[in-house]
């Protein structure tokens, strides 16, 4: 897979989105793209000589067809959000991680989802529903 470093204006756009939505910029990382995927990497600069990377660092999200940025499910544990954090019950968190949509009334937009103990996902609320974005291979069906 071909990973490319993103340019300054592409990175700024993502950080502007993160700041506006969550009150936090992620500027300590290298930003890379692979097709429509956006990855952040906290290691040193790599020229990828002699490498065949399957992934580079942490998958932060994707850039949609209209140029909008969509968070990955796991982005919640890397963005240290100061706002737009939605606290749910553990039961709701289990249901989300098993692949179910989450019904929560409120304003539309991206939220980071957490329980009392920690973050478990990211989701976009549209008309009171968070459509599930947990990849099928990552779903946990047999929760305690």
């Amino acid at each position, binding site marked *: 897979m071909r990973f490319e470093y993103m340019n300054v204006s592409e990175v700024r756009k993502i950080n502007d989105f993160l700041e506006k939505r969550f009150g936090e910029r992620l500027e300590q990382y290298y930003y890379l793209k692979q097709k429509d995927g956006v990855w952040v990497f906290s290691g*040193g600069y790599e020229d990828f000589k002699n490498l065949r*990377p399957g992934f580079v660092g942490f998958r932060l999200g994707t850039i949609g067809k209209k140029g909008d940025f969509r968070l990955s499910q796991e982005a919640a544990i890397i963005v240290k959000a100061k706002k737009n954090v939605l606290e749910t019950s553990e039961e709701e968190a289990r249901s989300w991680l098993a692949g179910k949509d989450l019904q929560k009334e409120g304003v539309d937009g991206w939220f980071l989802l957490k329980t009392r103990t920690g973050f478990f996902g990211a989701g976009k609320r549209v008309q009171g529903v968070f459509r599930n974005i947990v990849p099928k*291979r990552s779903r946990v069906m047999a929760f305690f």
Partner: protein
Amino acid sequence: MTKPAFKKLCQELGCPELLLDLKRELPQYIRTNLLLIAPEKLKKILEKKGWVLEKIAWNDYGFKVLKAPCKLGNTLEHAMGFYYVQDASSMIPPHALNPSPDERVLDLCASPGSKTTQISMLMKARGTIIANDYLPKKIVTLLRNVQRCRAANVIGNLSRGEKTVFREEFDKVLVDAPCTGLGAMHKDPKIIETWSPSSVKKLVAKQKKLAETGFNALKKGGVMVYSTCTLSVEENEGIINHLINMGASVEKTMIKGLKTRPGIIRNYDPQVRKCVRIHPADNDSEGFFVARLKK
């Protein structure tokens, strides 16, 4: 019936009861992911849910699970990346490697990622880890664990370890080589049925190539850890002897609170005595072999 070759190994190791020892049930362990939570906080959260945990004597982040109300991987806290289900012995190689933030580290046989994520944790997710494995599905498994644990300094590299060409690029290298797995026999008692001198011989050829690749990738003055979860001498001290012939020197692995046995010298270089063997009876954990080498 015990195979003659296995009997010979038991005699050589001075453990006539080795087979029973390897087959007995062992406790399960978890490793706190210090990138996301402190051990005391994790303990408190899990104990509220009916777990009983006991701290491992030789590190600050591992717990022996004395009681759990469910499968260890089926909890919200696991999905949140707060801990990794990992045998205590398997936590030794990254501990022995002792990586620092900002170093460049190669993990040559990385999937599923228990040791990779532990190395990342010890590096505070700074510096670079090249986590290598040879099948796309293994890289996908690795990615899932890296994402879950927020190990953002890992590059998953798709390549056959023994054919990878790195030249003196890394400060630290971990070669956790594929092996006959005698030390993990408690999980699969059939391992003894497939274990034989010819299965060992087959793997030794691969292990030698992997160890050579790892050693060539190491900068001068760098440190490499070679480990397996087996107890055959050829797969362990035999490989280390080969690396000594390539110019490696063995450093003694001293971990306070961990009971270990010295390497078996046979007709090898006496330095192999500085390697570390762990038998299940020693620490109530899987059988393991760990060697720390300097270039």
